[in-house]
């Protein structure tokens, strides 16, 4: 079964790339957001199966969004997508319940691996 995925990134170019990769893997894009506030709103409205969540957002940081999402929905699957390949950010993301951290720049193979780690089927029907 295809996952419905919420994509959160402040970069429009990165969102286009993520949408292309997600759809080429057979999943659906449930919604897109470019801010922390937009991410929380889209999460409530679209009820995605999984969230790809950027760490740096213009109105807050993705770790705070992760905390809010997990508070609202403790079983939410979230993968952090970030250029911040810092140990402390990675550790904090996992401690807050992220299913994985995907470091930019990444290719479709790395995205597939993280989605699979988060429980998404590799080749959805």
């Amino acid at each position: 079964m295809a996952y419905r995925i919420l994509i959160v990134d402040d970069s429009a170019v990165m969102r286009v790339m993520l949408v292309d990769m997600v759809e080429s893997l057979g999943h659906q894009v449930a919604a897109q957001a470019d801010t922390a506030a937009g991410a929380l709103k889209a999460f409530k409205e679209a009820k995605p199966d999984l969230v790809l969540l950027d760490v740096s957002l213009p109105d807050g940081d993705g770790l705070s969004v992760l905390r809010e999402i997990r508070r609202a929905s403790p079983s939410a699957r979230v993968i952090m997508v970030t250029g911040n390949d810092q140990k402390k950010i990675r550790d904090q993301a996992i401690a807050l319940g992220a299913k994985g951290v995907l470091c930019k720049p990444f290719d479709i193979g790395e995205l597939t691996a993280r989605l699979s780690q988060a429980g998404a089927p590799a080749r959805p029907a």
Partner: protein
Amino acid sequence: MKLRSGQKEVLSRLLEVGVTRSAELLGKMSRTKWSVVASSVSEIPVVRLLTWFQRDGGRYLGARFISHDPLSLRFLVIFPDRSSKAVTASVTRPYAGKMRDFPDIVRSTIGEVSNILAQGIVGAVADEFGAKVIFSSPEVNDGTKTNLFAGVLGDYDARKDMLMMAQIDMCSEDLTAECSVIMIAGVESLQRLLAN
């Protein structure tokens, strides 16, 4: 207030690690090899930094980022106009069909590329000191180097603040492109971090 020689050595070593990582990341994004042409660390008063680039009247696209506690940093990543277009074309090539009518594709791409470049460098510093550094979203502007620097230095006191400036110049022969990554930190803030 100045950095001690041991502190400068630590900083230079961390920058070397970070710069190597950044060149790899830029290479992966643009699918071409990038080399570090020059790398330097200087301590310089704000007022001098503002006049540093006055002779260069060329047009550049610059992405700036700011981080606050525990480490207050400013990053400015500068691409000459032609290089910004070459890098954008290379990074977005696999998605060219979907981005044909994309508004501000060069600014958006350079913002993202610059973010990843800056993160490569700051990651080395953050990990060394067990710190977490999260940048603001990129702000991308065009202008001369002097204009772009003035935007980054806005809230430093030109009369008294002493800054540490690390500048790394990179180039890609395949793309005939170049860029400069400039990291700026207040010397006092940096000394607090290096004292740990």
